């Protein structure tokens, strides 16, 4: 049974109409043309039909022309019978000639079209390869592949869809008319994508319906789904919107599947890059862990030893201790516990920073509030050593108020710890940034420390045997927090002796209301 492809009915109609129009023209002209010339004119028309409309309409045109010639130009006219046997032969010759010439012409046309299609495919593949190789960004590379897809596949829109860890679907890239693409939240879409990912086979793509029946109730007609495979793992799904088109023919399938492979390569490359980043992060965590362990063994032991000694001393039988001694030992335990608590807090802060889990919650904040919060929690004696100088015209500063207060607090504590005189906390602004500074009149920074002062555990290395308590995480945390704000933290020699730690926070861009 002959089935008409879409548009083929129109081709037959056009072929018939052309032949009929020619016949009307020739009849109107009257018997001025010989039968031989009439045949030639019809052959020309059949060639034209073959060129424009293809082989089957050309056959139809040849047959229709034979019949019409018989009816209109061969005696007796108006009837299919033929009086002169030689005209039989002429008509038969015409039919064979028209058929053969028509088929040859149509096959030439098909070859030219195939060559053109191959050319398009080759150039699409070459361009896609180039995009994949030259475009580092995943989404842009995918978009470039999708752009090439539309002209060779007849798709009006295409998208690359991946399934996230939580099962949600995301379109990483899309091209063409987005309205033709499916809604990724629909249940049916989920079902189709899951079938494609789990089975690694296309849905509504090949003629083999067995597979797509699993993904029943396709959300809308005209969508095709292909797996994006790399090294036998399905990394995503290519969705093509080809409304009105049936399953594609072999050449289209070939080129689309090649392009899908390109998209698969892009996804695989992204996965590799992520894996590499994770490995690097793990190595860094490992380094920190080692440093942390060595620190725990040194710095944690001393407060623990002090607590243990005091507690067991208090528990001893024998001569009862006088009450000032008891108080003194208890106060010792208390302050060692505070010290341990601070260390634990610093380590927690550092690990959150390193894990990138401590995003600042930036909001426009009055500078005085940051400074006030930083000073809170200092003892009365320490507070008396701090002079505060805030420029009167200070605007709001864009920062996370809690984190910035912690930065300032750490810097102030640091200055109080390493020096004995008064320290100055100041805030002022210039055109580009707000500057918060903590200045002391201490001995200044040892030159050998300046390069690595903000590295974790530096104090543990350089001052391990010193009498000043602390772990050397404070400055690392400060730097991490300030950098998370897009600012800088630096230590500079102070004019007239001492050190200034300066935080520069860029002004918030845009709305500062």
């Amino acid at each position, binding site marked *: 049974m002959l089935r008409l492809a879409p548009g083929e009915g129109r081709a037959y109609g056009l072929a018939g109409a052309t032949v009929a129009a020619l016949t009307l023209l020739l009849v109107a002209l009257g018997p001025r043309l010989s039968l031989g010339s009439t045949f030639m004119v019809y052959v020309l028309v059949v060639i034209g039909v073959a060129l424009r409309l293809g082989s089957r309409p050309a056959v139809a045109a040849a047959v229709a022309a034979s019949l019409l010639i018989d009816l209109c130009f061969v005696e007796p006219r108006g009837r299919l019978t033929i009086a002169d046997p030689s005209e039989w032969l002429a008509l038969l010759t015409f039919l064979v000639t028209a058929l053969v010439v028509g088929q040859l012409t149509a096959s030439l046309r098909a070859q030219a079209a195939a060559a053109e299609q191959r050319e398009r495919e080759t150039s699409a593949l070459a361009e896609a390869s180039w995009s994949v190789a030259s475009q580092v960004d995943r989404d842009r590379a995918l978009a470039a592949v999708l752009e090439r897809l539309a002209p060779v596949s007849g798709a009006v829109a295409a998208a690359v869809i991946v399934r996230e860890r939580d099962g949600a679907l995301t379109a990483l890239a899309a091209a063409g008319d987005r309205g033709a693409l499916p809604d990724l939240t629909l249940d049916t879409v989920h079902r189709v994508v899951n079938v494609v990912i789990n089975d690694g086979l296309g849905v509504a793509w090949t003629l083999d319906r067995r597979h797509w029946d699993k993904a029943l109730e396709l959300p809308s007609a005209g969508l095709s789904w292909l797996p994006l495979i790399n090294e036998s793992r399905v990394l995503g799904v290519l969705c093509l919107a080809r409304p009105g088109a049936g399953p594609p023919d072999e050449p289209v399938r070939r080129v689309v599947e090649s392009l899908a492979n390109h998209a698969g390569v892009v996804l695989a490359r992204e996965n590799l890059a992520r894996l590499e980043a994770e490995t690097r992060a793990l190595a860094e965590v490992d380094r920190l862990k080692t440093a942390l362990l060595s620190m725990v063994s040194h710095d944690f032991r001393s407060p623990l030893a002090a607590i243990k000694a005091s507690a067991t001393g208090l528990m001893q039988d024998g001569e009862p201790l006088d009450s000032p001694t008891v108080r003194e030992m208890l106060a010792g335990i208390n302050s060692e516990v505070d010290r341990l608590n601070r260390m634990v807090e610093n380590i927690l802060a550092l690990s959150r920073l390193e894990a990138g889990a401590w995003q600042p919650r930036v*909001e*426009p904040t009055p500078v*005085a509030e940051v400074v006030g919060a930083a000073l809170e929690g200092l003892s009365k004696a320490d507070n008396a050593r701090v002079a505060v100088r805030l420029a009167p015209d200070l605007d709001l500063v864009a920062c996370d108020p809690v984190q910035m207060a912690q930065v300032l607090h750490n810097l102030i504590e640091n200055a109080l710890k390493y020096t004995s005189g008064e320290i100055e906390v100041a805030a002022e602004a210039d055109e580009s940034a707000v500057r918060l500074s903590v200045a002391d009149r201490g001995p200044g920074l040892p030159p050998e420390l300046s390069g690595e002062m903000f590295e974790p555990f530096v104090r543990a290395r350089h001052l391990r045997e010193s009498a000043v308590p602390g772990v050397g995480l404070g400055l690392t945390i400060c730097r991490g927090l300030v950098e998370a704000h897009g600012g800088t933290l630096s230590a500079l020699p102070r004019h007239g002796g001492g050190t200034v730690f300066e935080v520069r926070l860029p002004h918030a861009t845009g709305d500062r209301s």
Partner: protein
Amino acid sequence: MKILVVDDETQIRRALRVGLERHGHVVVEAADGEAGLDAFAEHSPELVVLDLAMPRLDGLGVCRELRGWSAVPIIVLSVRDDERDKIAALDAGADDYLTKPFSLDELLARMRAVVRRVELGRADEPAVLNVGDLTLDFARHRVTRAGEELHLTPIEFDLLRYLALHAERVVTHRQLLSKVWGEEWAEDTHTLRVHISNLRNKIEHDPARPRHLRTEPRVGYRFVSGE
């Protein structure tokens, strides 16, 4: 005073019992949330000290449950990290919080503050409140510092009044915003920060070292009446 201590750590419960009993309080202990609710029903304590992280019904759940039918003062205990739980507990009706590790002195101070607050709440709102060198005249909407009148905007006055009436107690951003501005402003912490800053400039001698209007990082503010 009869105090219910709900905490899953035996050492903490023991230390609190010893410390609180030395100050003349009676202590009832419970080791998890469910047991805490049972003990509350059985002993009707006058104050609850409640750990947030507990097995079988956590502190937040206990807090919500208790607030369904009791106005008993509740102080929650938490570790530094669980700010969100802390704020949730305060918004669910807890009266104050303490961050572990804490000293017994801090706990006693918090207890005194919440109990005083509850007693104040029973009486009518005072017409005039004296804190430090500040005098708040609620009837006439006037604030004076050492006799000198301060010019506060109506919003600043409402803020100060709410904080002063809840003196010594932490008030969350959400509570302040919804009480002073209205429920639909409850997330607008930025506005709050700016007004608090202006208020500090007016009522504090040294706004960078506020004596009265203290910041509780990430949680809210605490009005401290004196030192």
